[in-house]
């Protein structure tokens, strides 16, 4: 069904106009997914410091305990939790389970994500602080 130019088709899923919970959940799933892939690459790249010996790694660890990095960790946990919990939701829905409750499930996922992230962030700052 040719209609839109390629760039428009490529970004069609970003267009939230007229969409509801399900569309929003899908968009967030993709955005967190892309974010986590980028993180994975960075993470693996950073781990190379381990190969350079104790000094390089422990210096990095010290830096990673700065409040700025810890805040980034909070963001990471937010992304992971959403992606994981919504992943469970999408797997069930994808098998036709719980479709009538999909919007409520989405808000459940969001609340749980926010709650768990809040706890995790608190814990991170408590441990390192």
């Amino acid at each position: 069904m040719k209609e839109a130019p390629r760039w428009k088709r490529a970004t069609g899923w970003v267009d939230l106009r007229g969409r509801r919970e399900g569309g929003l959940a899908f968009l967030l799933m993709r955005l967190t997914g892309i974010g986590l892939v980028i993180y994975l690459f960075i993470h693996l790249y950073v781990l190379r410091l381990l190969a350079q010996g104790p000094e390089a790694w422990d210096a990095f660890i010290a830096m990673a305990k700065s409040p700025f990095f810890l805040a980034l960790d909070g963001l990471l946990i937010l992304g992971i939790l959403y992606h994981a919990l919504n992943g469970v939701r999408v797997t069930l829905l994808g098998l036709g389970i719980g479709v009538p409750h999909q919007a409520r499930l989405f808000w459940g996922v969001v609340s749980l994500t926010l709650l768990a992230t809040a706890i995790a962030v608190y814990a991170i700052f408590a441990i390192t602080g």
Partner: protein
Amino acid sequence: MPTWQLRLLRGRPGSSPRLETYPVELPAEAYLIDAVEKIWAEQDRSLLFRHACHHASCGACGVRVNGRERLMCITPLREFSPDRPIRVEPLRHFPWLGDLLVDVSPMMRRMAEVGFAIIRRDELTADRPLPEGIEQGTRFEDCIECGLCLSACPVMAADEDYLGPATLAAIERMRSEPRDRDAARLLALADDPHGAWRCHSAMECTAVCPSNVDPASAIGRLRRWLIAEKLRRWFGGGR
């Protein structure tokens, strides 16, 4: 009688479309299709829009109302406020022919490929005695092929080869009651990267469906069946 402000997408292919406002005087009990038909009858005869049955049976009058897919004939004006314009645009993911008109033939050809008859066994009569001369109660399929689900689907936005919610739901209907159809060929069609597996469960198809089809659940059932088939082939395939 209130005056409603309709903002209709106007234009023809080849020129850039624009939104134009039309005031329409109608009672709050009227429907959006009445407002658009009245604009055509009294203000601008060049307005292109599809409509036929005016009671959600033909599926012709699908548009986007304030961004959301609706059938104009069952969208009551009382849902809106006369102070705020009602934006009406054509469906997405179909070739645009002008104003609110799109070409639905790509979808229809895909549905024709599935070829399920529009008549089904009537579940209401399953447990009841039937009048003499009638062996089996029949009624129409729920799907009215309006294309709202295709317009709302974010995967459809990107993948023009995606079978789409309506077609997948039709395949699932056919699977659950194959009658004389070639089920194997259709299930092969669904078991494809552009078939049932392409769905990302954004659930918008079911959210906009005006006719109780629930394509999202149908796709889920279809997947469960395809997975069970695969497992059967891998493990119990000997028989």
